[in-house]
């Protein structure tokens, strides 16, 4: 970047055929993606999936084994970190402990010989509401305050591309929600391109325009959060982004609009347009909140999949909704979220129930799940802690 000037606006980022090998293991298999200028892009994945390595490659802190990094259409693959129009908010914040907060924020401005660095640094600190702590040392601040200083230190440079490496990981839930909103506001206000790495699926979905789900060094699926959630294309995405009830079986009937899959004697119908594969053994699924729970057999109906009878094995109340776990013979365990429209659960443990959902809500995946039924997940963090092999 030219000394003394700011980027006019965010730049787009393009990764072309990136491959990264460390001694002993491959961090990134093959990665190509394009992040449009001014967008909020989230890289979501479990620990060790290569998302932080991707970020470090963009920042220039690692060199790709092969492939190219382009920022604003310019090849920066061979450029050193300090030559790139990129700033990073590090997971560890990495605030210089020997400098005051204001000097930390002014650091990048001073290096680029920007006029009046201290005034601009104060302005950035006001943006994160920490100007009153400008004279403190970073170690005298709380984790949340340090995180905001780290953000100010990066944003003050108006980089064409701002990289965020799980910066909200250390914050408590309430502060995290607040910072998520602030980040989003700052991004919209200053119009920068944000690339945010996280393992928190909720964080990725609330903040980003585009989410890319990464697994084992490759992108599994990329798209708008709603698209990814409503129409996952792989077993990993279906289970990592929220929960899913998955069934695997052969396709027994294929009409123009729908395919029917036989799951141990039960027919499940999925729209052809929402299925990735239309023949052979396929995995189909449905989100738990799309299921409705009834205590009497509703009988076959057009445009409806019905499963049952099953036995309720667990009921857990979580405020806005209640989670029912239903054991269906030969199909496995299913999860159903029901809105709490009445006080208390509708059915109790041991009750015999039927589950139904609209055919339009089902989806067919590209790969095949090894286990039928729902994978039990509490939250994205639990998944991140699990070995990806175990999830699949």
């Amino acid at each position, binding site marked *: 970047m030219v000394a003394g000037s700011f980027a006019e606006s965010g730049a787009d980022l393009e990764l072309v055929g990136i491959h990264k090998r460390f001694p002993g293991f491959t961090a990134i298999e093959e990665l190509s993606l394009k992040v449009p200028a001014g967008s909020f892009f989230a890289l979501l994945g479990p620990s060790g999936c290569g998302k932080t390595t991707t970020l470090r490659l963009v920042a220039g802190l690692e060199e790709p084994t092969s492939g190219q990094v382009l920022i604003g259409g310019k090849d920066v693959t061979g450029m050193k970190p300090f030559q790139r129009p990129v*700033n990073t908010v590090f997971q*560890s914040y990495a605030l210089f402990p*020997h*400098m005051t907060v204001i000097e930390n924020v002014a*650091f*990048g401005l001073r*290096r*680029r010989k920007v006029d009046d660095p201290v005034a601009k640094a104060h302005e950035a600190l006001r943006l994160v509401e920490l100007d009153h702590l400008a004279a403190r040392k970073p170690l005298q601040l709380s984790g949340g305050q340090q995180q905001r200083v780290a953000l100010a230190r990066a944003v003050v*440079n108006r980089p064409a591309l701002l990289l965020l490496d799980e910066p909200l990981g250390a914050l408590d839930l309430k502060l995290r929600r607040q910072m998520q909103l602030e980040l989003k506001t700052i991004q919209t206000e200053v119009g920068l391109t944000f690339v945010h790495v996280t393992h928190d699926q909720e964080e990725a979905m609330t903040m980003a325009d585009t989410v890319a789900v990464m697994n084992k060094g490759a992108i599994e699926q990329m798209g708008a959060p709603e698209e990814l959630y409503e129409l996952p294309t792989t077993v990993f995405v279906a289970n990592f982004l929220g929960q899913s009830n998955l069934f695997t079986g052969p396709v027994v009937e294929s009409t123009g609009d729908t395919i029917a899959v036989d799951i141990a004697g039960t027919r499940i119908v999925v729209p052809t347009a929402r299925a990735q594969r239309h023949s052979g053994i396929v995995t189909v699924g449905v989100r738990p909140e799309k299921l409705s729970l009834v205590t009497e057999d509703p009988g076959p109906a057009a445009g409806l999949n019905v499963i049952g009878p099953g036995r309720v094995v667990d009921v857990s109340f979580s405020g806005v909704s209640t989670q029912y776990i239903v054991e269906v013979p030969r199909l496995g365990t299913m999860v159903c979220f029901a809105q709490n429209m009445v006080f208390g659960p509708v059915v109790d443990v041991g009750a015999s129930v039927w589950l139904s959902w609209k055919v339009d809500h089902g989806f067919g995946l590209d790969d095949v799940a090894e286990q039928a039924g729902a994978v039990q997940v509490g939250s994205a963090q639990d998944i991140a802690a699990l070995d990806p092999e175990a999830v699949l």
Partner: protein
Amino acid sequence: MAIAALAGSTVTQEAPRKKSRIALILLLPGIFYLVLFFIVPFVSLVITSLQVPSATNFGQFDTAFNWQTYVDVVGQYGTQILRSFFFALLATVFALLFSYPLAYFIGVKARRWPLLQGLMLVLVIAPFFISFLLRTLAWKQILSDEGFVVSALKALSVLGPQDHITGTPVAVVFGLTYNFIPFMCLPLYTTLERLDVRYLEASNDLYAGPFATFRKVTIPLSLPGIVSGTLLTFIPAAGDYVNASSEFLGGSSSTMMGNVIQSNFLVQLNYPAAAALSIFLRAIILIIVSAYVKRSGTDDLL
């Protein structure tokens, strides 16, 4: 004195204020040691420095309050005093210039290879296994007029036919630098070994090139090591009498305060002069060191 100065540079932590007999008992040997080997000799030294030659017995001294000795020795040995501090300063600067890259390599670059790290540390410490008198004598041999260094330099016309290395200030500063490199290297290594390279990455990310990163981040973060290393080198180097002695690397043109004190004590038997010089040397070092520690402790060197 050096220890007190070092303690002053570190942040004192507030310990829980609970009176404990055990702490006192554990401190007793240390207090006893300090009283016996520091306070008592020091008081005795102060008394000696103020004595006057006995009027009756030649070679004996009587207790007095003759502060004139201080004025006399400072006037008489001003050159040697200034030279001592100048040589010590040069040796400290050279030792720092030599040790910093070495310590940085061992502490930061060699982190990926613990075996190499261990091996290089052993190489830094290994000279301690041989008496430093022997090592200095060995250097005298190497740098002697018959040695290959002098003959090679003469062949290259760097040295004239009548020039020497031993007995010159060059040899003394070289010897001081060589002898104190481990004292500089080890404290530097300890701070650099803990240097978090993520700060360097952050600096790089914030448009600072390698030089700016070194000046603005690496040096300030390794300042504690630089301060203790320079103190551990400067203080003993200023009082050193081995390297500058004519039996080792020095000569008449390179005499330092240590040699003057030694000669007054052991050759001229002028105990008050030697004691006054010792106390003067300590006082000057104390002033220099406290000014230095205060400056590097409060100033952020931004």
